[in-house]
């Protein structure tokens, strides 16, 4: 256990092979969390490169950098990648790493199921990206509106990869959510009552429920689409009496909760970061938690606000518009929670805090443009324009990504024992913040000027040239910031300032153990009597690591589950089945055999029950 002054212990010399086997068979929630985050950051970069390609194409009028078909593929894969392969797994990864630590648990409730989720995410993502080498990537948008997705309009196999790749990662999300729900409800250390849980844990709980209830709708939509494309049915074909609008209902019944699935944990992260760097407890914890739960419920009643332009009956449209405005109320409550937490606090403007504050400001802009779009006649005017693109990038980039970056700077020291460099971190923040606004702020005006989204190019002389060029400059500014971030990670992993147990003087339980934590997380836990277990109310400061250790009761019952290769085998089987459904049944049969072998091995493995 390293203290502040000491250097970190040198890593033991192990062969690369045993290291590889260790990571491939691990059931440790921390290693699984790191792999989730690493995979998600990789796909964040890939999705970012796709975005740059789009911005190069749109930098000026009538450019021919991308063929329109390639543009459609880039657009589709950018959205799909950012939502399913970057945002969701990075939240699952940080949740995986920190939820057990924050509630004082040794691991997740189902360690092998946890590993299964990771491998399904990674293999499903690879399957989706194999489409680029198999005739073409998905090209009908991440929302995949019927009938654009039918064989007539998307004849190559790209959409089949989209369907099955996302089904595989969807199984991962549901498995992960079940694990989070059971872990959070059932594995809290003594004293960690529901109303003492860190807000991040609360948001992971609500998000997990949203995933459990929202994903099946997407799965059904995808199953029907797969049948339409490959087995001659016509669930979305108007010519047999069906309605293509069914897709939009099924998709957005999933798709709108999905927005909150990715943004709620982001809310949770800033709710941890802002108090610590304001030296004040979170303002209005109870209101914040109730607002989170309220958002969870209301998020299932607003899906048709994506569909105002399809010709809904006016009463239906206004009802959904009203529900969408109501959801602004609990969201605004949270904004005030964060502002009043900072009010009269002694702020420390670390990189994490800068990202967190920027999140609050940017998310307000995204929320306000959301209320504008929830107004039905306004939506009729602005739907399918760049105003919508501006809106959801302020919520997803300004909301999710900025808070995830804040969390990276905040939790990196706990995960790796060293801090990320703060000076380069601030350069990263500045470039990201400026670049983000350069890219997306002009899109509001472009949208009001009538520039349609999803198109591969636009004519000259429409007055859109300058704003588009500014947006492209902004995108490359973000890319420069991201390059600095990646370099910062690489360098700080080896040479960063040693962090010690509690570098930011945080008060939640993840700071009550060493950095990085041992395999069993805690040697013992301090008593939990409040929402801030590491806060010393008398001395009005955070307990030092030595004081924490002195207060902790050592736990003798340490039983860690053995490593297991079976999650990887089962995931490989499921992915092979999915691949077989696209390519050839022979592969699917092999997949079934691998899957069955994996299940038998899983059940027979000793050391679990």
């Amino acid at each position: 256990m390293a203290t502040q002054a000491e250097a970190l212990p040198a890593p033991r010399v192990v062969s690369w092979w045993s290291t590889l086997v260790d990571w491939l068979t691990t059931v440790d929630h921390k290693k699984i969390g790191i792999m989730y985050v690493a995979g998600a950051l990789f796909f964040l970069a890939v999705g970012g490169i796709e975005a740059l390609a789009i911005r190069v194409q749109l930098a000026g009028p009538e450019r021919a950098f991308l063929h329109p078909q390639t543009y459609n593929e880039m657009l589709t894969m950018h959205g799909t990648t950012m939502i399913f392969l970057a945002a969701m797994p990075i939240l699952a990864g940080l949740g995986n790493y920190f939820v057990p630590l924050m509630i004082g648990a040794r691991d997740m409730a189902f360690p092998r199921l946890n590993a299964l989720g990771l491998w399904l995410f990674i293999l499903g993502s690879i399957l989706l990206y194999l489409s680029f080498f198999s005739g073409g990537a998905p090209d009908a948008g991440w929302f995949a509106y019927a009938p654009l997705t039918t064989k007539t309009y998307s004849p190559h196999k790209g959409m089949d990869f989209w369907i099955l790749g996302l089904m595989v990662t969807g199984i991962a999300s549901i498995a992960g959510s079940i694990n989070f729900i059971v872990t959070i409800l059932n594995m809290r250390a003594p004293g960690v009552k529901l109303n003492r849980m860190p807000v991040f844990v609360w948001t992971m709980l609500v998000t997990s429920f949203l995933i459990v209830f929202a994903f099946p709708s997407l799965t059904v939509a995808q199953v029907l689409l797969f049948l339409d494309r490959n087995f001659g049915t016509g669930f979305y074909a108007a010519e047999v009496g069906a309605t293509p609008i069914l897709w939009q209902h099924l998709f957005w019944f999933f798709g709108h909760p999905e927005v909150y699935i990715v943004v709620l944990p982001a809310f949770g992260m800033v709710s941890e970061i802002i108090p610590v760097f304001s030296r004040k407890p979170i303002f209005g914890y109870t209101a914040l938690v109730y607002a989170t739960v309220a958002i969870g419920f209301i998020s299932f009643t607003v899906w048709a606000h994506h569909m105002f332009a399809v010709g809904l009956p006016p009463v239906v449209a206004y009802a959904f518009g009203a529900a969408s405005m109501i959801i602004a109320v609990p969201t605004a409550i949270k904004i005030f929670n964060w502002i009043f937490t900072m009010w009269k606090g002694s702020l420390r403007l670390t990189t994490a805090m800068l990202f967190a504050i920027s999140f609050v400001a940017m998310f307000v802009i995204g929320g306000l443009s959301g209320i504008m779009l929830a107004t039905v006649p306004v939506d009729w005017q602005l739907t399918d324009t760049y105003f919508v693109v501006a809106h959801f990038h302020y919520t997803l980039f300004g909301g999710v990504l900025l808070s995830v970056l804040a969390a990276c700077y905040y939790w990196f020291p706990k995960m790796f024992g060293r801090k990320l460099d703060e000076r380069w971190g601030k350069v990263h923040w500045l470039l990201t913040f400026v670049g983000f606004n350069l890219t997306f702020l002009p899109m509001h005006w472009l949208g009001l000027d009538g520039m349609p989204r999803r198109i591969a190019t636009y004519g000259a002389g429409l007055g859109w040239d300058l704003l588009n060029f500014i947006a492209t400059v902004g995108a490359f500014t973000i890319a420069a910031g991201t390059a600095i971030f990646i370099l910062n990670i690489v360098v700080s992993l080896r040479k960063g300032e040693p962090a010690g147990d509690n570098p930011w003087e945080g008060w939640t339980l993840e700071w009550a153990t060493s950095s990085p934590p041992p395999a069993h997380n805690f040697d013992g836990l301090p008593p939990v009597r409040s929402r801030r277990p590491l806060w010393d109310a008398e001395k009005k400061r955070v307990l030092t690591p030595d004081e924490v250790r002195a207060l902790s009761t050592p736990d003798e019952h340490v039983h860690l589950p053995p490593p297991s290769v079976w999650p990887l085998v089962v995931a490989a089987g499921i992915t092979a089945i999915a691949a077989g459904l696209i390519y050839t049944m022979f592969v699917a049969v092999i997949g079934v055999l691998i899957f069955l072998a994996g299940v038998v091995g899983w059940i027979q493995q000793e050391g679990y029950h």
Partner: protein
Amino acid sequence: MTAHVEKHGTTLGLDHRKLGFWTFLASEAVFFMSLIVVFIIYSGRSTEGPGQELLNIPLTAFNTFVLLTSSLAMVLTIDAARRGNQRGLKFWLLMTILMGAFFVGVQIYEYRKLIHEGLTLTSNLFGMTFYTLTGFHGAHVTFGVLWLIATYIKALQGKFGPDNYIPLDVAGLYWHFVDLVWVFIFPIVYLIRW
């Protein structure tokens, strides 16, 4: 996780596996709900081909009766396990399996007959929604039968008793859920005249 931790270490006093499985069933419920909604939305919208009139209601009503009775057998299986009655456990588990297999068998017979009479997956909207809804349910029953057979093999080895019946309990939750879904499907697909 050792058995010790499983039993005494949970915050809610509820076994992890049961809590997790309930959550999974919640997800499954939305899955079937979506399929049922699609069936209802498309009911009566077929532009051609055969419809509900082909369905053999008495046969399926009897099949429904068998499936629901299998849930009773599953309850008696778990009850026997909790009492340590190994013979009863094996008998009722076997009964559950047989009734489940019977249900699947009748469904296969029904499908063959309907296809012969001209209703296929691609005939019309009724065929599409009928086969996807009942097909996904049938696949769930089939998976349940396989699961129960695997459980039966373990029961023959004497693995279950008053101290270890949670795996049976979880299999039972799944079985009851699949039955419950059928309780919705049967009237909506077979009885209501759309």
